[in-house]
């Protein structure tokens, strides 16, 4: 009861944290850092058929400064690693990172001199979507899990 008792049905009550989280989880602006074949799957998942826009995450910003979700899509080589780190550092808070595909999660089968064995050795990762490449359903599941994570986070604003 509490305040609702006095105000009737004309108001909704909530906490600021919850409102902010609700807004944030449905307005993820992804920055697609696409380096390899997973990019095709990224295109599929963001295009009309699978329609990532249903989850509020289909407005790619092609500058990291306007994005809050870094989708690392594809193999990251050691030569690329400093660039990825720089892109991550350019993003403003709050920011999240999705490791899209097994190469970004662990290096995948590229266990060789050229490939970073998981991007979490360079930047923090919030959600891992394995698969070679992951199916669109897996990516959507990853987005939904990330949304759940966002609602449970302490919101800073």
């Amino acid at each position, binding site marked *: 009861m509490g305040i609702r008792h006095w105000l009737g049905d004309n108001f909704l009550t909530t906490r600021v944290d919850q409102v902010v989280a609700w807004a944030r989880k449905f307005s993820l602006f992804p920055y697609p850092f696409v380096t390899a074949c997973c990019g095709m799957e990224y295109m599929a998942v963001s295009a009309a058929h699978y329609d990532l826009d249903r989850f509020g995450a289909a407005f790619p910003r092609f500058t990291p400064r306007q994005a809050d979700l870094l989708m690392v899509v594809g193999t990251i080589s*050691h*030569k690329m*690693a*400093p660039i990825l780190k720089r892109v991550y550092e350019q993003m403003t808070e709050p920011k999240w990172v999705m490791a899209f595909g097994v190469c970004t999660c662990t290096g995948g089968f590229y266990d*060789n*001199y*050229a490939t*970073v064995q998981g991007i979490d*050795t*360079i930047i923090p990762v919030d959600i891992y979507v394995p698969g070679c490449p992951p199916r669109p359903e897996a990516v959507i599941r990853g987005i939904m899990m990330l949304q759940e994570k966002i609602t449970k986070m302490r919101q800073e604003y």
Partner: protein
Amino acid sequence: MAASEHPAVSKLRQAFGDKILDVYTFRGDTVVVLDRSVNVEACQLLRDDPDLRFDFLMDLTAVDYLGFGRVPRFEVVYNLYSFANNLRLRLRVPVPEEDPVIRTVTHLWKAANWAEREVWDMFGIRFEGHPNLKRILLYEEFQGHPLRKDYPVNKRQPLIGPIN
């Protein structure tokens, strides 16, 4: 086509004699093994001879024969094609381990520029006279040449982050 029928073989034999180390056919492709002292001259002849006109360097790569008991250890391979005469020819040029140098063919085919840089990057074979011989795929900080068979398979040289 048998090796003896290939029009390039007789011309190369005539011009370079005992610098032609071997000639054979593998699955229909004629292969000529050359001494490295005549690699540029042979390429020049193959490109400019009006009966041959190998105007297209399809590929330039190298092989490391470590563990095969072969001397010399490396081989640079040229795959040539003639649009005018519809001919193919593969040149193999042995390169010794202790002096891994061969003269460039960038002045004959521009396509050789990046291919030679890749061979330098991966195998550490230097191309004398190359206009810009630096690593093409790996970063300058990288030590060694990873496609050499004695490059440790688990050796990692990250620019940032831990070695894992």
